[in-house]
Each structure stands twice: as structure tokens, then as C-alpha cells.
């Protein structure tokens, strides 16, 4: 058994490294080409932070079974921490421009600081909040999310008069960690490494004894605590662990966008980035499946992007393309249809794995065949 596990790890590592190197070669070859630089690379950046964000919420929602509607608050903390730290470092003269080695250190420090601050705050929030369950927990986390956004808004050095303003936002490109399209190509490896590392860490968490404990809490909290699982300890720990990665996602967000405005993290904001959408991503991908979250984040981003910018929209008949002027409308419809026909989400609780791919497919096919036969039999009898 042990050898199989280690073989699986080895296989995954090899595949990831090969893919990564291939991608690096591709980047260095096509890095200066227009569509690659202006469309594909920024899309990858956005996918990266969405993936990390969705996967981090999946820890709380899918594996621990606690609904949190304030996840974007932690992302906002991460985004602002990273941006402010990088600005401060520039002001202190730690780096001159983005090709410096010291900039890389600042970048790493910003990402880490973003995660740590988000985790600390979520630890403080989690202690009182996680005493509640179900819908009440959802509401209290929503409340904390709103408060975080509101406080950031009212801080004199960020919020509405600070980073969100045009001049200051432009300075995030020049002085902070905001990446222009050229720098995005140059630092693409960084986004990928951070994403892969985060996902790996989360995956390891889920597979560890902590993961088993929180799954026990999800399935039956009373039974878990009766069998010696310290439920409040594991809940707060997981909450903080998940917020850490939400903070990291926030740091990636401020790298990608270079303009920060609290309204983009607010609960009432209608865009792709609010706490409800993260929940939607997790449910769409399947609660309790990290790979599902990754796939769902990519799909959500892709659908969103295609509806807004896709060339094929113009070829549709006028009556249909009129609807596509309102991307969120289509989005909502897609969502309702998916929920109606596949309430478990795309992956359910299945984890995609390279090693088990073939046996998994075979098993799924057998199961489908069995279900079909059963239905046929029921029909014959009924």
C-alpha cells in the first residue's frame, strides 16, 4: 500500500514538473506574441487565483461541511496586505524595478504576509463564529465579511481614497506588485508555482489526520466529538488554514489586477468575485473534491470570459446575442440548469488522479451499466 502511494506521488510530481517545463519553454518561445501575451497569460493568472480561492473554500465547505459566506473578506485582506507591503518596500528602497532579485524576495514575502494576516484574522473570527452551525454560521461569516470590507473601506491608507484611486492604482503597476502584460509573462512561473504549492498543501491537509478529523465532523459532529475529536480545535484550525490560502489568492489577485477596490470583494457586488460565487464554484465542482474545485474555477472563468469577449457571440442570431450583452444573466441560467440536472456538482466527491484514472473510468462505466440494467429491470416489472 505504501509503495503504491509513493508511486502515485512520484507519478504526479513527474507529470507536474514535465508540464511545467513544457510550459516554460512555450512561454519563452511565444512570450512576445500578441494573443498569448494579452489574452492567454492574463487568463491563466486569473484562473490561478480563482483555483486557489475555490479550493481553499472547499476545505471549509466541502470537507468540513460548514458554510462560510465571507471568504472573499479574507481574500480582500490578502490582496490589500500584499499590495501595501510591496508599496512600502518600494518606498523603503528595497527594490528598484521588477527584474531585481530583491523584488522576487519582496514578492514572496508579500504573498506569505497576505496569507498569514488572513489566517490570523480568521483565527480571531473563527473562535466565536464557529460555535454556530449551518445557516447561522453562514450569516455570521457573511457579517464578518461585510465588516472586513467596510473597515478596509474606512482605513485612511487604503480603501476608497487610497489604492482604489486612479493615480494610486497606477502606482501599483509602477511601484508595487501589480504586473503589466509583459511582467505577467515574465512572472507566469511564479503564479503557477504558488498555485501548485497551495493546492499540494491543501491536498496534503485533506489526506492527513486533520483531513480525516474534519470529514468526521462533517458527517456527524456529535459522533466525532464522542470518539475523541476535539471539534472546535479542528474547526478553527481548518478555518484559519483555508483563510491562509484565500489570502494567498488575494495576493495573486493584486498581482493580476493592479487596481484594488473593495467593491470588487463586497458581498453585494454582481461580478464573478464575491463570496457567493466562490461557494458556487465549490458546489459546481463538487463538495469534497479539490480537483473538482480547480476544474469548476477554470470553467467558471472560461464561461465568464467567453460570454464577455468570445468571438462566437457575434455570429449568433441577433435575438440570442442580445441576451449575451448581459453576461450575468446567461451565467445565472447556466447555474440553475446545472443545479437542476446535476445537484452533486461536476465531480461529486471524486478526486481526479492520474494513477487511478483508468481503473476509475472502468469502475464508473460498470456502475453506469449496472444502474441502466437496474432501471430496465424496474421498467419490465413496473
Amino acid at each position, binding site marked *: 500500500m505504501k509503495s503504491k502511494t509513493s508511486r502515485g506521488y512520484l507519478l504526479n510530481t513527474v507529470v507536474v514538473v514535465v508540464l511545467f517545463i513544457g510550459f516554460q519553454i512555450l512561454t519563452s518561445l511565444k512570450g512576445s506574441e500578441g494573443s498569448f501575451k494579452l489574452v492567454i497569460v492574463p487568463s491563466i493568472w486569473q484562473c490561478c487565483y480563482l483555483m486557489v480561492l475555490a479550493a481553499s473554500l472547499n476545505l471549509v465547505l466541502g470537507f468540513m461541511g460548514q458554510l462560510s459566506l465571507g471568504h472573499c473578506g479574507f481574500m480582500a485582506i490578502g490582496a490589500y496586505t500584499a499590495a501595501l507591503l510591496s508599496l512600502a518596500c518600494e518606498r523603503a528602497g528595497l527594490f528598484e524595478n521588477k527584474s531585481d532579485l530583491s523584488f522576487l524576495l519582496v514578492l514572496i514575502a508579500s504573498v506569505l504576509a497576505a496569507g498569514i494576516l488572513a489566517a490570523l484574522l480568521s483565527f480571531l473570527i473563527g473562535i466565536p463564529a464557529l460555535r454556530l452551525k449551518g445557516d447561522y454560521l453562514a*450569516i455570521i461569516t457573511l457579517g464578518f465579511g461585510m465588516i472586513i470590507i467596510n473597515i478596509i473601506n474606512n482605513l485612511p491608507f487604503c480603501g476608497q481614497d487610497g489604492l482604489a484611486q486612479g493615480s494610486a492604482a497606477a502606482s501599483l503597476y509602477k511601484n508595487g506588485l501589480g504586473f503589466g502584460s509583459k511582467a505577467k509573462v515574465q512572472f507566469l512561473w511564479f503564479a503557477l508555482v504558488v498555485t501548485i504549492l497551495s493546492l499540494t498543501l491543501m491536498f496534503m491537509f485533506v489526506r492527513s489526520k486533520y483531513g480525516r478529523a474534519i470529514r468526521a465532523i462533517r458527517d456527524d459532529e456529535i459522533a466525532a466529538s464522542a470518539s475523541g475529536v476535539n471539534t472546535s480545535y479542528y474547526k478553527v484550525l481548518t478555518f484559519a488554514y483555508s483563510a491562509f490560502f484565500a489570502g494567498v489568492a488575494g495576493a495573486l489577485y493584486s498581482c493580476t489586477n493592479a487596481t484594488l477596490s473593495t467593491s470588487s470583494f463586497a458581498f453585494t457586488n454582481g461580478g464573478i468575485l464575491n463570496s457567493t460565487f466562490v461557494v458556487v464554484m465549490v458546489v459546481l465542482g463538487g463538495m469534497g473534491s479539490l480537483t473538482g474545485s480547480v476544474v469548476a474555477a477554470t470553467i467558471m472563468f472560461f464561461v465568464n470570459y467567453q460570454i464577455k469577449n468570445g468571438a462566437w457571440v457575434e455570429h449568433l442570431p441577433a435575438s440570442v446575442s442580445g441576451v449575451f450583452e448581459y453576461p*450575468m444573466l446567461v451565467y445565472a441560467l447556466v447555474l440553475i440548469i446545472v443545479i437542476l440536472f446535476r445537484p452533486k456538482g461536476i465531480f461529486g466527491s471524486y478526486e481526479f488522479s492520474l494513477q487511478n484514472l483508468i481503473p476509475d473510468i472502468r469502475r464508473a462505466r460498470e456502475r453506469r451499466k449496472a444502474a441502466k440494467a437496474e432501471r430496465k429491470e424496474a421498467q419490465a416489472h413496473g
Partner: protein
Amino acid sequence: MNTFFQTLIVGLRLGSIYALVALGYTMVYGIIRLINFAHGDFIMVGGYTMIFVMPLMLRLGLPAWLGVLAAIVVCALVGMGTELIAYRPVRRKGTNMTALITAIAMSLFLENLAQAIPAIGPNPKVSSQIFGNGGFKLGTVTMEYTTVITLVISGIVMLVLYAFTQRTRLGRAMRCVSEDKAAATLMGINVNSTILLTFGIGSGLAAIAALMYMAQYPKVYTTMGALLGLKAFVSAVLGGIGIIPGAMLGGIVIGLVESFTTSYISSSMADTFVFLILIVVLIIKPAGILGKNVGEKV
């Protein structure tokens, strides 16, 4: 002292609007355990209906506020349609979480559908004056007619609703379904039509809330329901969700907190205090102010 009473009255007025919306949330939550995120958008539906009906009313020589009758009908239909098309199929198949996602999707759908309708569009619309201008002096405090009417109407609506749920057969059926669906079915109550009725009444209340809101802030836009609905839901939770007097109490508390922080501390921090109050109450009394803590059976 003058400012204090003025703030108090503003808070009561705001609170009674929140309470009306919160009633819709609390009724739906009480009966199917679903946070109906689309409820805030029913206010928007009511608002736009009134925008279109009010000129008609004025042309017929009727007072503008009679447009609320049309709004109630439209809102109730939209609410029941939402339940029939989206919530009921999902409830039959999915879990709580999928129902919640459907509610979020429905809210998005309504907001964006309104934008896609050419007569509405994304720009805000301004309504005409609904109630008469002016007011009277009570000591040193000015009472506007709008405020008085808002308070009186919402008081009457709440009393009627409370009597309805306590005294009538349908109201009893509603309470019964929210307590135990299986037992209600055994007692000969049609659970599905009771749920439908709840959606109709809750959405109709949203239309009345829209009237009150527009009387004060005569601007209607497609996302007007989002924050209003959120605060109303917070009120419902604060008072104890599923309990009708709780929604009223919660709404008034939230309205007062908001108006007092706005005038005494900072207007931009008002939301923080609203949610802070919620958090404090939930930590002290997890089931809300009027809610009963039910111990868990093992």
C-alpha cells in the same frame, strides 16, 4: 435632544421597512429552511411595477400609492413562479446547499433580467411623489407625513399577518408545515400549496416594503434589493428566524442601530455596526433574540 428624537424616528421608519422585508424572509425560512436570496429582488420587482403603474393611476385620477396593489399582485406571482420553477424541483432532488445556490442564482437572474428588459435598463429611474409633502410639528420634532404613514401601514400589516398566522386555518397550516412536514401531510394539509401560499404572502409584503422605500428614497434601480435584502435578512436572524414577532423586533433594532450610528458615529461605518450587533447577539443567543435554544438530541 432634538437630534436624538429625529434619529429615533428615522430609525423607526427604516426599521419598519426592514421589518416588512424580514417578514418575507422569516416566513420562507421558517417553512422550508431556505435563505431566499432572491427575496431582496422581489422589492426591485415591486418598485419597477409601481414605476410603470403610477402614471396610469394618476391619469385615472386615483392616488399614486394605489399602484401598490398591482405591485403586490406582480410580486406574489413572481415569488410563486420562483418557487414553482426553481425551488421546488431542486428541493425534491438536491440538498440544502444546492437549494441555497439556486436561490443565489435566482437573485442574479432577476437582477440581470430586469437590466435586459429594454423598458427598465441599467439606469436608475426616479418615481414621482407618492405621499403628500410636508408634515407637522410634535414639540420640537418634525414628523413628516411619509414617516407617519410608513409606521402606521407597517404596524397594521404586521398585526394582520400575526393574526393571520395565529387565528386562521391557512395560517395554522403554515405553522404546522414549518414545524413538521411529514406530520402536516398526515393531518391532511397540502404541504406544497401551503409553501406556495407562503411565497405569495412573503413576496406581497416585499411589494409593500417597496412602496415604503420609494416614498422615502424615490429612486429605483435593478440592484436596489441586494443590500436592503441582506440587512432585512440580518434583521430576521437577529430577532430569531422563523418567528414573526422576531422579524419585526429585529427589523426595528437594525433600523435604530443604523440610524444612530449614521448620525452619531460615522455614516460610512453604519454597515459595520449593523453586522457587529448581529454577531454579538448571535454569540450570546445563537437562536436570535426571541428564538428558543433547542438542545441537540443524540
